[in-house]
């Protein structure tokens, strides 16, 4: 799984560089979370993206979709080469997730704060129809400043949605700076506990710990679980780590090469770049 995470990290850098825009830092901080879900925890079948009994994933922090697209491609939902079309006209890979365009995307998202409500709606139906499906929602830490998140937090606890799991990509940064400076969300865990959620903290870059915690969430009955995953924005690339400038900046050719070199597999970089240039 670590190997896959490295591959996904590499894909993200290539995609955003080829697209000329996108959210690198936000995507890199969620690599292990998304990898743990798609390559270990979630009950899914890439051959049947519409299978009703599957688990669902909502990327509520939709701007981090490069990490989702890379995971979906590596899991076999669509060809890896298609990643080069990110954000281009007629591409199935929109700048924010689109459930009707991209195979494997369970919910359109990108306008922040709304994913948890959508997820609660899904979880309610899974309960109503006695489906085995679990619903996972990944939120940014800055994102929980949105009021609707707490409306959904109430709903999920009220309806005892133990088939719903929220994961907070707690990287401490948002577009305007440190979350603690922009609008402090702390104490995060206490807030969720006060909303009657099962609250667990985990190292968001430790794949084994993530898998264990996500499975623990599945076993919790009678209330929803939130996993506060401590992460580093821009994880894996020295000059991007913990830099809010890299929330939505595109790397130059040199920066991209350096970033790839630091991730993995620099040898394939030029080939991939040539393909994407031909595609455009």
């Amino acid at each position, binding site marked *: 799984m670590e190997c896959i995470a490295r591959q996904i990290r590499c894909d993200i850098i290539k995609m955003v560089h080829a697209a000329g825009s996108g959210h690198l830092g936000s995507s890199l901080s969620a690599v292990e979370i998304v990898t743990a879900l798609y390559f270990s925890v979630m009950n899914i079948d890439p051959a049947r993206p519409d299978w*009703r009994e599957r688990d669902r994933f909502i990327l509520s922090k939709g701007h981090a979709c490069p990490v989702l697209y890379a995971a979906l491609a590596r899991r076999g939902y669509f060809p890896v080469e298609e990643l080069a079309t990110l954000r281009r006209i007629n591409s199935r890979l929109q700048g924010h997730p*689109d*459930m*009707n365009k991209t195979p494997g995307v*369970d*919910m*359109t998202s*990108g*306008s922040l704060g*709304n994913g948890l*409500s*959508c*997820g*609660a*709606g*899904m*979880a*309610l*139906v*899974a309960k*109503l*129809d006695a489906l085995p499906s679990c619903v996972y929602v990944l939120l940014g830490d800055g994102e929980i400043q949105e*009021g*609707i998140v707490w*409306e*959904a937090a*109430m*709903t999920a606890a*009220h*309806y005892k949605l133990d088939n719903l799991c929220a994961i907070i990509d707690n990287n401490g940064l948002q577009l305007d700076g440190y979350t603690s400076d922009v609008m402090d969300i702390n104490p995060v865990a206490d807030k969720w506990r006060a909303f009657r959620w099962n609250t667990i903290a985990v190292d968001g870059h430790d794949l084994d710990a993530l898998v264990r915690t996500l499975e623990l969430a599945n076993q919790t009955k009678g209330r929803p679980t939130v996993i506060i995953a401590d992460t580093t924005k821009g994880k894996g690339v020295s000059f991007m780590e913990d830099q809010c400038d890299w929330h939505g900046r595109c790397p130059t050719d040199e920066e991209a090469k350096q970033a790839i070199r630091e991730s993995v597999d620099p040898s394939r970089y030029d080939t991939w770049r040539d393909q994407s240039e031909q595609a455009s």
Partner: protein
Amino acid sequence: MSDLVATRVAYGDALPEMGEKFEDLVVLDADISKAMQTGAFEKRFPDRHFDFGIAEQDMMAAAAGMAAMGKIPLVNTYAVFASLRACEQMRTFIAYPMLNVKIVVSHGGLAVGWDGVTHQGLEDMSVVRSIPNMTIVHPADATSTRKLLPQVIAHNGPVYFRLGRNPTPIIYTEHHDLQMGKAEVLADGGNVAIIACGPIVSEALKALELLRAEGIQARLVDMHAVKPLDTAAVLDAAALTGAIVTVEDNNILGGLGSAVAETLVEACPVPMRRIGVPDCFGESGDPDGLFEKYGMSAEHIAGAAKSAMAAKRK
């Protein structure tokens, strides 16, 4: 035209039957289930009714999630809250992904009356009409509400179903065969055409009498589907009469009047007058008094009809 029934009441009465007919139907409320008349449904199908508390945005986005799981959610709230407070949830999470959610709103228009501006949906049709993929259905009375509801639910895609708060006249009889999206010609007349939607159609009917007393024969079209507009019915009315008046209980900017004007100006320009809330906020008061004050009464409609007729090319 003697009985008075609010369209929201007709809706609530029909819901249990809809629950039987559509097994995927679920009903969502935001603490105004009494006003929305969903109690009978909740009683019959307690498992398929969900209250979200006073949280319209959460309810709207949750409905998107439910529709993504194959349900047909009916989201219930007032027009002003659905179209404005939860507007983005409707646009981005329901209309954009074309999810099969029906947004049922009461309290459309100035006719809300006493509650005043905060609870009067005056801009909602304009807002919703500008959102792609949305269908807007605004029935004129209790009978048409009952006849259109199953069609709204059966329609595959998001629908905004606009109802009124207060008791209003019954216009249709049971034998009327209403088809969602197809305008209904309620009166035939060659001098001028009135195109109206919602319970204010009853004011237009009164205007017809006033005009008849002056020897003017007016055509009356109930345009219950504001979007997509029955453009053939609009063009027929223009070709047959040469003068059009639109009547709606919504801001005159962006709603039915605008939709009709857009159609006419491109295909068959004729003199036209628009009756509606004249781009202002309302106030508290009795509905008839408000229609009088804001230029939306039967007398105003009749006056607008004569004005449009006078502007016809000699």
